[in-house]
């Protein structure tokens, strides 16, 4: 059994400071990217609204049902600070964006465009920020996978730890630990019974 030595830290101060320096060096890049999830200057008032209009397709007929059109609106982020999608924001917030973006979606749907085309038109005008979630490609794919990878790694780490602890048990590393015997005599159980009932203190 290893006895911890309180006098000697297991991580040297120099190592800690080097690691700290690395973290500090990366901070400016992150700080420069703040305010990332909204359009610059976007307010509830709708400053920054960009009309998304396209000519209807020849012999256009709406190919999206109302439910499908609503679903498309749910995939569009309202640029106001609500952090909601266009469909949800437009009836609840005093927003200058979502009602107008809704009109654009309705117009495009009536012009015969599909959901993918409508989303692409909005992305052309507003940029990728208009999608409620990033597309799972490139660096953003890493964003989607990172939580699962982290949990998978954690799970494997736990398995590895458990195996190590199990080996300790097999080796009798802490042989001073024994489960208590559980059998009690009739007399002891009777004494316990009286104690629990408050007849004996």
């Amino acid at each position, binding site marked *: 059994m290893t006895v911890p030595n309180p006098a000697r830290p297991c991580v040297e101060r120099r190592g800690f400071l080097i690691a700290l320096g690395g973290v500090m060096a990366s901070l400016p890049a992150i700080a420069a*990217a703040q305010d*990332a*999830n909204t359009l610059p200057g976007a307010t509830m008032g709708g400053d920054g609204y960009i009309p998304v209009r396209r000519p209807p397709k020849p012999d256009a007929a709406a190919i999206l049902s109302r439910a499908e059109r609503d679903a498309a609106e749910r995939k569009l982020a309202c640029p106001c600070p609500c952090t909601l999608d266009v469909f949800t924001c437009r009836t609840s917030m005093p927003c200058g964006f979502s009602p107008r973006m809704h009109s654009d979606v309705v117009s495009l749907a009536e012009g015969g465009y599909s959901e993918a085309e409508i989303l692409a038109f909005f992305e052309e005008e507003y940029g990728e920020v208009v*999608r409620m979630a990033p597309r799972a490609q490139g660096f953003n794919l890493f964003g989607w996978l990172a939580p699962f990878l982290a949990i998978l790694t954690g799970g494997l780490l736990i398995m590895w730890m*458990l195996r190590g602890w199990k080996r300790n048990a097999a080796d009798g590393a*802490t042989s001073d630990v024994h489960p208590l015997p559980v059998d009690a005599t009739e007399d002891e159980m009777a004494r316990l019974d009286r104690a629990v009932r408050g007849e004996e203190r």
Partner: protein
Amino acid sequence: MILLGELSLWIALLMTGWAATVSFAGGRLRRPDLVASGERAIYASTVFVALASAGLITALVTHDFSLRYVASYTSANLPFVYTITAFWGGQAGSMLFWCLILAIYAAIAVFSNRRSNRELMPWVTGTVAAVLFFFLLTTALKSNQFARLDFLPPDGRGMNPQLQNPGMAAHPPNLYLGLVATTIPFAFAVAALITRRLDGAWLAAVRRWALVSWFFLTVGIVLGMWWAYVELGWGGYWAWDPVENSSLLPWLTGTAFLHSIMVQEKRGMLKKWNVVLVIATFLLSILGTFITRSGVITSVHSFAQSPVGAWFGTFLLLSIIASSYLVATRLRDLETPVELESMVSREAAFLYNNLLLVGMAFSVLWGTLFPIISEAVRGTKITVGAPFFNAVNVPLGLLLLALTGIGPLIAWRKASTRNLKRQFAVPLTAGVVMAAALLALGMRDGYALMTYSLGAFVIGTIAQEFYKGVNARRRMYGEGAPSAFVRLVSRNRRRYGGYVVHFGVVVLFAGFAGMAFREEFDINLEPGESFTAADPYGDEWRFTSNGVSVYETLNRFTTASALDMQRNGEPQGLLVSEKRQYVDTFGNPTFEPSTEVGILSTWRQDVYLVFVGVTGTETAEVRLTFNPLVMWVWLGGALMAIGGLIVMWPQAERRKAQSGYMASLSPRVAEAEARALEGV
């Protein structure tokens, strides 16, 4: 009183500075006089922070609009209750409110440990005082609620209409009580690390504080969900908004700690992990405060961008550095010889429970910060909204729900195959029967099906645990079932209170899954016109417009739409939704129009009406939603809070006497009763 309040703020600042300095010095030099001085300074700080708060409340109640804060968040016609809630309604006031709670907590922690944990207390007092000093310094220098205007306005700006809701009186205080409470366990962890006294004593001291934090965070989060649902008018209760997320993060790690602490208590394992969880929970609560107050991430909930953001960023960074250093240099002290008899044991289940809870915390934090990271890497702005969070967290939540049922069925140390078969038979049957019944009834939504089936499995587990416990008591003591039940819970509060929390989680998840079946309709109705729709249960509803009305009340002009409701031909009453334009004392509009929703709540579903506006002269444009099982969400939250109270409730003296007696019996007897009550 206002002047006294302002003065008190500065005196409190000096007092906490003194408390931090002499406490650390007392701990370092082992000088009891300095330690005592630090503790007395904490009590004094509490008094002065309370006086500062009283000063601000006096200014609010007396409408002293010469104070910038009072003029910014209240008006002469603001209802009294909201005049009081303005204390925490704005940036500067909420900072002082935070200080008040922290000061009271600090005083309680110092008082309750006046005869215990004396080796740790100088460092505990010093750490809490340092945190309080930072908050008071930020308040005094960067966000002073006593700052005055150069002129005396005739009236204030008033309060944002969305804050004029009963939720304002309950949600922020509970959330703050929970977030601030994370400071005390953090202080104990720091003290234990500094002194290298990393045995179980510090954990015992922080367990109740961790529970207090968890309890208030739970209540605060659920109240926030309710508030969003009834006030914001978008028909839901959780939007994965960055500020919502920031309140969830410490709750997740705090919940993980409350589970992993049991492993250390029972088996002496996970010492490092528990220290890390306590520190992470505090840091995440500070991170949440930073997100809310810095303007780094946009949210409808956040305070306006202000200079305190940089202060909080610096404080967070310093806290991370200091605690990382302490943990890194004490890793050897945290090492314990660990052995595990079996991979199938309760301690292993707790580890996976912790993995999922911390994994969820990571995914929420990752999703919240990923827009910043992505822009830093790619230079392109992106949005990470509900689709991401749902896609990642729903499967993790279901796994966690499964573990909620599995964990209690597995014995500590090692579970035999026979034991597992016996333990799992009833809960598994309950889950399978539920799945079969729902499939037969036509439910095809995969996640909902899994939620209800796993819910039945967990309820099967809980029912079995209670049944075995009650039966054991009846067998051992000859008690009747009701008294056996009451005594079972009252004498094993941690365990059975925990099961009540688990039951609340099941009910909560059932409510969440109900939203998979919501139905929404956007409709325009002229007066007298009707709209017919089927709800998710197949009942036919008929809504008839009673027209649009316009009227004026105390501090607002209101436009309302009223719908007469019938379900399968039976009258269900009137549903009214409003658009409100708030005005100041002179009748001038003060904020953007806000929406008041109309809700008919039943156990089956909510009928949710949002008045969007008027088309033409009298045509009401509304959104109608059937939201199944929303009330179950509130019930689940209430059950979790009740369970938390049961766990936290102090044990009666009789129990202590009995415990003492049991200790005098042979260990075999104590173990026998424990085993009998465990039913394994």
